[in-house]
């Protein structure tokens, strides 16, 4: 039994590879899976639920490692939209850049983008952690409910618009924050949290360099004075 199993998407379909990852991996003895020639294909390694390391050896398309559970997926290139969307647990790491909506609705686990992420990074996130080595585009962490987005570069306009309980840390320049989000003082607990995330992502910056953005919670109730008749 091989400890490393290799698949070549120049020879196989994404469906065949995913079928293996869903049904044949457990019990195969493979602790690591290498996927060659992803060539911008979509939905590679979507829906995993196994303690396995998956390396995607090149640039990949949309929805890579979508809804991931437990697995540790590394993309050795750039990815299209919605990498690790709805991640539940495990780690998804992009060695290059990520397009829009990285880690959208992520419930748990860690997503690391070593390069830049485009707009809406962490949109609707629900408990996952996201670390971006570069910058993020506009409306990142839009309606983010829980979890942490840490950005080592700059952030685009409307950061954290309509934020709920998720927290954002930004190292460099913040363009405007969105509706109902505001900058708050960085306290000792925040520094510890930033240090934890940087260490998990393997990035070396001083936690003190970061600024904190959280919800002003002014949109949590429309207007309680009018007996809910609004």
């Amino acid at each position, binding site marked *: 039994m091989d400890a490393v199993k290799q698949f070549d998407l120049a020879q196989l379909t994404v*469906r065949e590879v995913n079928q293996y990852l869903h049904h044949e991996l457990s019990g195969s003895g493979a602790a690591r899976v290498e996927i060659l020639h992803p060539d911008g294909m979509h939905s590679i390694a979507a829906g995993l639920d196994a303690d396995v390391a998956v390396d995607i050896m090149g640039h990949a398309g949309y929805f890579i490692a979508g809804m991931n559970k437990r697995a540790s997926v590394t993309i050795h290139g750039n990815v299209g939209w919605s990498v690790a969307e709805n991640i539940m647990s495990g780690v998804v790491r992009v060695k290059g850049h990520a397009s829009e909506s990285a880690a959208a*609705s992520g419930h748990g686990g860690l997503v690391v983008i070593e390069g830049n992420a485009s707009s809406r990074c962490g949109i609707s996130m629900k408990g996952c952690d996201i670390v971006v080595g570069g910058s993020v585009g506009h409306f990142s962490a839009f309606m983010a409910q*829980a979890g942490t987005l840490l950005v080592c570069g700059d952030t685009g306009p409307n950061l954290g618009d309509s934020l709920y309980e998720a927290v954002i840390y930004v190292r460099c320049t913040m363009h405007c924050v969105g509706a109902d989000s505001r900058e708050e003082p960085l306290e000792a607990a925040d520094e510890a949290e930033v240090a934890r995330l940087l260490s998990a992502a393997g990035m070396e910056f001083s936690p003190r360099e970061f600024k904190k953005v959280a919800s002003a919670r002014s949109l949590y109730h429309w207007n309680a004075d009018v007996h809910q*008749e609004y």
Partner: protein
Amino acid sequence: MTRSFSHEESAGYNRHTISYIRQAADCGLYDIRGMGAKRTVPSFDDLLFLTASASRYPLEGYRERCETKTVLGKRVAKNPVELEIPITIAGMSFGSLSANVKEALGRAATEMGTSTTTGDGGMTPEERESSKTLVYQCLPSRYGFNPDDLRKADAIEIVLGQGAKPGGGGMLLGQKVNARVAEMRTLPEGIDQRSACRHPDWTGPDDLRIKIEELREITDWRVPIYVKMGATRVRDDVKLAVKAGADVVVIDGMQGGTAATQQVFIEHTGIPTLAALPLAVQALEEMDACEDVQLIISGGIRSGGDVAKALALGADAVSIGQAILIALGCNHDTYLQNGQEFDATSDYEKLGTAPGYCHHCHTGLCPVGITTQDPVLEKRLTPEVGARRLRNYLQVLNMELTTLARACGKSNVHHLEKEDLVALTVEAAAMAKVPLAGTDWIPGRSST
């Protein structure tokens, strides 16, 4: 007779309009309410069946079999949805409905051999356990959406919008966001929750195609994928959904209900179900997709007559929400608890309304225990009572449907056809594209 100018009401500024303007000026806030459109719009009531006589041959009402089996999602899924009747239960969230009601829906649907649907907020164990066939909604909010429940689903419904509020997101006011609802949605307890109106991980129809493929990959191409939309630009939207790979298209007309949204949405957006259905059928025909893609229509389906007319106009099945709630006891003046009937009128009064007029689902104080998370109120409808009432109602709809089908000479309800229908009004004839009764005239189609 002398006319009293001192009490002549203005058509443009009647008491209703004056009260609307007054409230807007008093509060500075718009109205939010539940249920669907209250205005009169052309509907299935404006159609009639031309049942058999000399030119057509009827089936015996009680003796000859009339098939009602319905298969949905035959396009690529390994396991299409197979139903005993073409009447399904629409998506309604746990949160807007109590857990008891969700369980009642599952039980009744299972007994009748049909499907029920989750809603914003995810799947509860009670509804999965009680439902043989459960459709799992993938909504813009993604509250509680997870791969384990996705794999437990018998079909997936990607919701782009609903008839009561096409283009708008969901709402759940704070009094309904109790600890369990808050936990399922990953939200702070008691906040006025506003759901997104756009999906977080895709935008246009090209992205939707890739999203559908991702969901197929995650579920191993096992279950069908529905795409649900509010009825607006129906012909274009259906074509885009089919092109994106939908196995089933669900069109929700403007009469479709909601647990809470802005009144301006409910009354002023979308098109009537009667107008939407022929446009959806036309789109499928133009794409030569009628065999591959099934069509579910919803929004104001109340009776077996409505179901039969929807099928005759080309739907494969209908989906019902508001009428299901009414069958459970919505707007009834009494409720049953511990085998005894209790008067609910004073509880309606507390909401400033009365049985027959209530649209106060958004308050969470439903007098009959349906749209509530209140521990006292939710006891007013047990799963047993709810399931019995609902099963009775679905049975009646199905019997009415087969009665009409047999009378039209059909041994299968899916053989009902447009030629079996005429319209009572010019508007209905134009929308349904069937002749005005007593003529050959289809407005916009023929010159006679």
